[in-house]
């Protein structure tokens, strides 16, 4: 492979992208071009299979118009560039980097202030790796996607860091590898539309509206992802809509509005869904499924301290799914049964029946009264008067009585315990001081009557 390395002195500010274009024109296909450091203004279109390496010191600034960098030949590699300033009008979909043929490699690129970050159109076999994408500061409804694949099969998207965009979205793209990406403060962390046969692992999706949303996409495995604090209007950690043969396993699904939302997945008659070994904790609702949802094998998950462990979205229950496989169910932190024979499986089925949440299902406004004594009063009434108890939303015939090993990236933290201890000590100290100083009988001024004051002190002590 011919190597063509340019060594030039650092450029002054305000160079034009035409200089890079001239370098590319002068190079042979397959050459590696080390672009001199500096800020280049304007747009750049590459139509030759070259490697463009900025070594982290090259910025291309589109000046807020159009698509900044366009890749039009297979075999292009771009690496170590900063791309910024695309247009912002959503109708032309301006992007930081756009490829219209594949394969291309986009590595160690930083995209800032772009409507769409990295956009692959019909670019199969491409690699998007270790890039950083920051969206434009727009209201959520007007943002573009951080990373988008469109009809691009067999791509690898890994170790990217996306924040403040719309989605990292995959349209009609199959056989992808999606690993170790971070998406935060966006709409959907990972969004699959009609994209099949993909392995999604070890991604961290936090503070988005939805962590991972799979729609009409089949044969996808979600493994060891961390879904944290996704609380938008829909607010799911993982959402599954009309997807067949999905495997959701060993994910940590924490503090979302809804941990796992399942709507009619699997949708075909002969397919199944597997939801196992996930750690689903501290969500408002752990598992939410439409009553039509069926044929999911839900086992060995840990449902820990979700406000509502499982719920049906609409009238009905979740009874058409299996909550135990080979005699092993799930761990439910609110399980009140017992394990008689010491096999760590409860002898009494887990059947959640909360009257308050039953009422919530038909009247969502009542959620205002959650965390209140009134809620407790309603639950107490239902326990005291069994005829008021709703039918259980699900039945787990063999609930686990010990927390299963899930392999999920939970990430323990004990930060703040020292500060909390200090707060406790300070509070105790201050209140003790107040009690001691004010709680004694008053010391009277010398002009007072000492003998009567002594009497007062005796009475107070």
């Amino acid at each position, binding site marked *: 492979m011919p190597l063509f390395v340019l060594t030039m002195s650092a450029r002054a500010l305000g160079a034009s992208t035409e200089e890079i274009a001239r370098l590319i024109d002068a190079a042979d296909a397959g050459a590696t071009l080390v672009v001199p450091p500096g800020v280049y203004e304007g747009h750049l279109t590459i139509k030759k299979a070259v490697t463009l390496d900025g070594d982290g010191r090259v910025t291309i600034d589109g000046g807020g118009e159009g698509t900044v960098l366009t890749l039009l030949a297979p075999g292009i590699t771009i690496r170590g560039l900063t791309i910024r300033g695309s247009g912002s009008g959503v109708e032309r979909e301006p992007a930081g980097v756009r490829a219209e043929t594949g394969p291309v490699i986009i590595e160690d690129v930083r995209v800032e202030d772009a409507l769409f970050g990295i956009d692959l159109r019909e670019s199969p076999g491409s690699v998007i790796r270790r890039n950083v994408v920051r969206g434009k500061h727009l209201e959520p409804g007007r943002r573009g996607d951080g990373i988008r694949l469109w009809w691009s099969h067999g791509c690898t998207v890994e170790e990217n860091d996306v924040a403040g965009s719309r989605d990292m979205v995959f349209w009609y793209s199959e056989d992808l590898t999606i690993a170790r990406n971070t998406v935060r403060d966006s709409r959907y962390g990972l969004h699959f539309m009609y994209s099949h046969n993909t392995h999604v692992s070890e991604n961290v999706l936090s503070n988005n509206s939805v962590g991972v949303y799979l729609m009409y996409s089949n044969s996808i495995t979600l493994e060891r992802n961390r879904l944290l*604090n996704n*609380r938008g*209007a829909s607010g799911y950690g993982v959402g599954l809509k009309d997807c067949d043969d999905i495997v959701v396993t060993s994910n940590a699904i*924490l*503090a979302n509005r809804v941990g796992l939302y399942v709507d009619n997945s699997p949708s075909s008659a002969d397919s199944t869904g597997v939801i196992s070994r996930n750690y689903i*904790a*501290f969500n408002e609702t752990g598992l939410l499924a439409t009553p039509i949802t069926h044929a999911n094998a839900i086992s060995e998950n840990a449902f820990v*301290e979700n*406000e509502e462990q499982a719920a049906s979205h609409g009238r009905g229950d979740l009874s058409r799914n299996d909550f135990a496989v080979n005699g092993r169910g799930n761990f439910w*932190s609110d399980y009140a049964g017992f394990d008689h024979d010491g096999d760590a499986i409860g002898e009494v089925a887990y059947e959640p029946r909360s009257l308050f949440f039953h009422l*919530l299902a038909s*009247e*969502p*406004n*009542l*959620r*205002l*009264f*959650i*965390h*209140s*004594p*009134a809620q407790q*009063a*309603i639950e107490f009434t239902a326990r005291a008067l069994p005829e008021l108890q709703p039918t259980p939303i699900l039945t787990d015939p063999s609930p686990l009585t010990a*927390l299963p090993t899930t392999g999920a990236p*939970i990430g*323990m*933290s*004990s*930060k*703040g*315990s*020292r*500060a*909390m201890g200090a*707060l*406790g*000590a*300070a*509070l*105790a100290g201050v*209140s003790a001081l*107040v*009690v001691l100083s*004010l*709680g*004694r*009988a*008053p010391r*009277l001024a010398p*002009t*007072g009557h000492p003998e*009567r004051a002594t*009497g*007062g*002190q*005796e*009475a*107070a002590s």
Partner: protein
Amino acid sequence: MSTLSSVSIETGRRSYSGFGASVAALARREFRDALSSRWFILFTIAFAVLTIGVSFVSLSGVGSHGFSGFSKTSAGLLNLIMLIVPLMALIAGAGTIAGERERGTLVYLLSQPVSRTEVVLGKYVGLACALCCSLCLGFAVSAAVIAWRAGGVGVAAFSLLIATTCALALAMLAVGLLLSIISRRANVAVGLGLFVWLVAVFASDLGLMAGTVLFRLRVQDVFALAIVNPLQAFKMAVIVGMNASLDVLGPVGAYATQSFGSALPWMLWSVIVLWTVVPLSLGVVLFARKGSI
């Protein structure tokens, strides 16, 4: 009685130095009386034990994960506070003036050179200090437990919970004091206090829930009706302080967050403050009228 005599000396001695000094002297006397009374010690112990229990139960078994936001521990504590603190404050307030009136010591107190306003305010301030001390002791123990079991809630969130709880206690104390002023006997005042507690804690919420279901109330109506209740305002103030949003409270919470945004905490706090200022002023006015001894 002999406690009172020492105070009458004190108040008598200090009355010439003005309004504030009289109130302070009366407050100190009330504070000391509260500390030596059985209900106060009982409540302090009960509150501390229950907060420890809640902290333990909420954190046990699963370890903690250091999440910010609204955790199970805070939810458990919130429930406990809404149950216990209003009861504590209402009964403390209700017992005070009506009790002295019944025992006849009120006449004696008012024969001292102190104004009736000073008596009401002094009693209020003294009891308020006692209540806040009692709550802080309970929270201190709870904080120690949480720290020992490796912090499930953030320190800032916990401090906010403490501050809001004290504000709630002050509001309920003002209501209790008002009940005490309008009641002739201590039993009646405490009974009224229990009734108000039942209404605030259970009846109003349950009634509003029934109304929401039966009349299909709109979110804005549910919200407006709910925040009239100081307990609901308290709960929302805590949640909005920890979470910056009321989205955990469903559509009504989302409506409130979207409609009022950053003004929401101020709104909720002003509800609590109004529940303090209005009953207290009303109490001062009613007590100042002749013949209320």
